Every structure is written in structure tokens, then in C-alpha cells.
């Protein structure tokens, strides 16, 4: 399968890329890892007239803790997250997620920025970002702004990134010893989208009660979903089995999955409940 014809440019600076995107308008697409976009172009679901390849722009790939935040550059590849020392030591949620995203070859190219900017509730990083309370840096020709992940997704394939803009970075509050995180998705086979996926971040108080909770759901809602009631059901509690079950029940009730090849709505709600329960327990065990 061959994509429809298009013009290709690989600018060497962010400014040049932004200028090209403004010049070409809405029919231009950004090529990051390309492992969502190129398959869609081959199937002719997408037919951009221009591709702006941002792989030659230096400085968009990094993982660092600074000023109380974990900063991740948009062009950081999944494999780099998988192999990063900081991530392996402290941010287990990414290690959990990376292993389940597509396959090793795809992870050599797929980027975290692309995974989020694609605006697909079936992708895994949106839920992870929700759990971690991330912000997204969006850059245009006049400068950059930070957008909360809760205000980032507008609809199917549409996000806060407007025409002529590039998602350039992500930041989330750095975790400390009192925090634990986890992610799991049920998938039919390697490389499949989630039947249901749940991301959890828990921070404890010194007295063993729950200080804060972040819970994001993958592919069980039109938009990546924050399980708000579930979070509220945990904060301030001693995280007993009963509290956890209550949070899991709310997540199952508050999502909105579709019947499809991966399962019925009922089955998916059940899976959300089971995975939420397990991931909360796993996150607690990692605090």
C-alpha cells in the first residue's frame, strides 16, 4: 500500500518547522515517529498534502528531573523511556506502559509526543499523563504555553494543538518516596489497542492515608478519561480493600466504552473495575 502523493520537508530548526506548518495550513501534518501517521496514510485514512518531518530538529528528546518536575521532550522515543535510568528507578508507570505499547520495532521510532498529539483515546500515554497530572507544552511562532492534560483533548483526533503549532514537551510533578504508580492494559495480542487500560498514581501521607490519587483510563471513553470519583473515593482514606473496591466500581460506572471486537460494553466495564483495583494495589505497593 502506497500513500497518496505529498510534499516532504525536514527542517533543521523548530522555527523553520513552525513557519512551514503556518505556510502549508491545515493540510500539513507533522511527522514524528510516524508509526500512527504512515499506516493511516497507507490506508488512505489520511492524505496530508505536506509532511513536516521534525526528526532533524535537535533538543526535542530528553528525560530529566528539574525544578520539581519530570520533563520529557516530545520527540523522546518509547525505547528511550523504557531504557532510561530515572524512569526505571522512579516512574514505574512508564515502564509498565512502554512494554505494552506496540512492539520493539515500533517503540524504536514512536515518540511520547506523537502518542499524545495524535489525540486518540486508544493510545496509552494520555491515561498515564492524566494519572501523573501532566502539562503539555505547545509551541507556535510567538512562543510557548503550558496546557493541563485535562484541557488538552478536544475530541477524536483533535487536541489543543492548533494549526501552525507543535507539541514540544511534557512535564509532570516529580515523584518522591511517598508515591507509587502503575499502568496495565488488557490487550488481545501484542500491538493491539487496549480492551481497557488503567493508569494510577498514588501519593501517601506520613500516617499511611492517601494524600492524592490520579487515575486515567485508556480506550473506554470517547476521550481519555480522568476517573474523578474514583480519585475522590481514595483521597483521605486509609486505602482499605473497601475503599479500593469503591474507587474501582466508580471507574467502571463513569467510563463509556463501546461494544466492539474487543468485547461488549459490560465486559469492558468489568475489566475497568478489575484492572483499576489491581493497579491501585500495585501503585500502593510501590510507595
Amino acid at each position, binding site marked *: 500500500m*502506497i500513500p497518496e502523493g505529498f510534499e*516532504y520537508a*525536514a527542517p533543521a530548526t523548530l522555527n523553520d518547522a513552525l513557519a512551514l506548518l503556518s505556510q502549508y495550513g491545515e493540510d500539513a501534518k507533522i511527522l514524528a515517529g510516524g508509526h500512527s501517521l504512515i499506516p493511516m496514510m497507507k490506508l488512505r485514512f489520511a492524505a496530508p498534502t505536506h509532511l513536516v518531518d521534525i526528526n532533524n530538529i535537535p533538543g526535542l528528546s530528553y528525560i530529566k528531573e528539574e525544578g520539581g518536575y519530570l520533563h520529557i521532550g516530545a520527540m523522546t522515543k518509547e*525505547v528511550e523511556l523504557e531504557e532510561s535510568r530515572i524512569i526505571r528507578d522512579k516512574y514505574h508507570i512508564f515502564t509498565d506502559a512502554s512494554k505494552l505499547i*506496540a512492539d*520493539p*520495532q*515500533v517503540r524504536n521510532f514512536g515518540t511520547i509526543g506523537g502518542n499524545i498529539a495524535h489525540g486518540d483515546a486508544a493510545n496509552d500515554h494520555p491515561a498515564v499523563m492524566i494519572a501523573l497530572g501532566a502539562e503539555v507544552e505547545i509551541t507556535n511562532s510567538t512562543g510557548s504555553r503550558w496546557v493541563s492534560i485535562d484541557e488538552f483533548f478536544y475530541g477524536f483526533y483533535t487536541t489543543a494543538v492548533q494549526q501552525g503549532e507543535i507539541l514540544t514537551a511534557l512535564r509532570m510533578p516529580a515523584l518522591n518516596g511517598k508515591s507509587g504508580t502503575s499502568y496495565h492494559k488488557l490487550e488481545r495480542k*501484542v*500491538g493491539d489497542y487496549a480492551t481497557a487500560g488503567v493508569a494510577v498514581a498514588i501519593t501517601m501521607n506520613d500516617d499511611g492515608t492517601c494524600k492524592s490519587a490520579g487515575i486515567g483510563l485508556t480506550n473506554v471513553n470517547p476521550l481519555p478519561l480522568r476517573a474523578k470519583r474514583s480519585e475522590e473515593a481514595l483521597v483521605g482514606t486509609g486505602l482499605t480493600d473497601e475503599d479500593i473496591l469503591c474507587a474501582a466500581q466508580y471507574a467502571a460506572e463513569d467510563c463509556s466504552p463501546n461494544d466492539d471486537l474487543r468485547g461488549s460494553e459490560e465486559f469492558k466495564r468489568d475489566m475497568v473495575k478489575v484492572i483499576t483495583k489491581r493497579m491501585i494495589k500495585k501503585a500502593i505497593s510501590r510507595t
Partner: protein
Amino acid sequence: MHEIKFKVNGVEQTASVEPRLLLVHLIRENLSMTGTHIGCDTTSCGACTVLIDGKSAKACTILAVQANGKDITTVEGLATAEGLHPIQEGFKEAHALQCGFCTPGMMLRAVELLEKNPNPTEEEIRWGISGNLCRCTGYNNIVTAIQYAGAKMRGAELPSTEPEFV
């Protein structure tokens, strides 16, 4: 058309390509190197796996223009004048192929896997080749072949390649 310059198996190449040309077609059709196979053409099966600057990649999902300046290894580049690459020897010794269609991609993926992890466990190998589908072997002998190649490359004792009958 874009003029691109790249290396395949150490040999400098130039090509004039349309942006929509896929890397796998550049390799198979422009360079007539047909060891790189096209299986699913949808980023699933891994038959088109090549190495780009040492990283395993599905060549059906990379544009040929993206290869500009890159160093590509295909299955044709594995063996040297001295003989087979250890991974090829492993596949031969362990009977790790039947129809052979997945084998080039499987071997190139294994080369990167062993580069990063010279002594992988069975589980690490199975996760490591999870982007490569084989419809013949049931994978067991492929796992053995990769263990064999790993042992050979690090100079360790070679594992048995005799099939286990249970």
C-alpha cells in the same frame, strides 16, 4: 523528487525518490535486494525488519526519504567472507525456520536484541521478538537459535539445539 544518500550494508548508495516511496520498496525494487520481505504491509508482522543505524525498524512504515544519511543493514549484510553471522548459524543449527519468510526480519530483530542484551532469558527473547510473527515454527526453535547466537557472540558454551521430545 528528493535526492538521498545512505548506506546499505556498508555500501554508499544514492537515489532519487518520491516522498511517498516506502523504505522497503526502495530496498527491494530500486536496489533489487529482495531478502527484506513484505508480509502484512501494516506494521504488524515484522517480515520487513531492517536495521537503521543499528535500530530494528519495520521498513514498510518508514519513508525512503527518512533514510537520508542513515546506515541500513539488511539480511544480505549479515554474512561476511568468513562465513555466516552467529544468528544465521543459530537459525541453521536450531532448525529455526520452515518456510523462511519471517527469517530475515526475525534475525535482524534478534541482532539488535543481542546487541542490547547479550544473554537474554527466554522471556526476554519472547518479548524481544514480539513484533515478528512466524506462522510455521511455534517460536520454540527461534528462541533456541537466538540463545545459540548470544552464546556464540559472547564466547560462552553453546546450548543444545536438539529438539526436545515430550
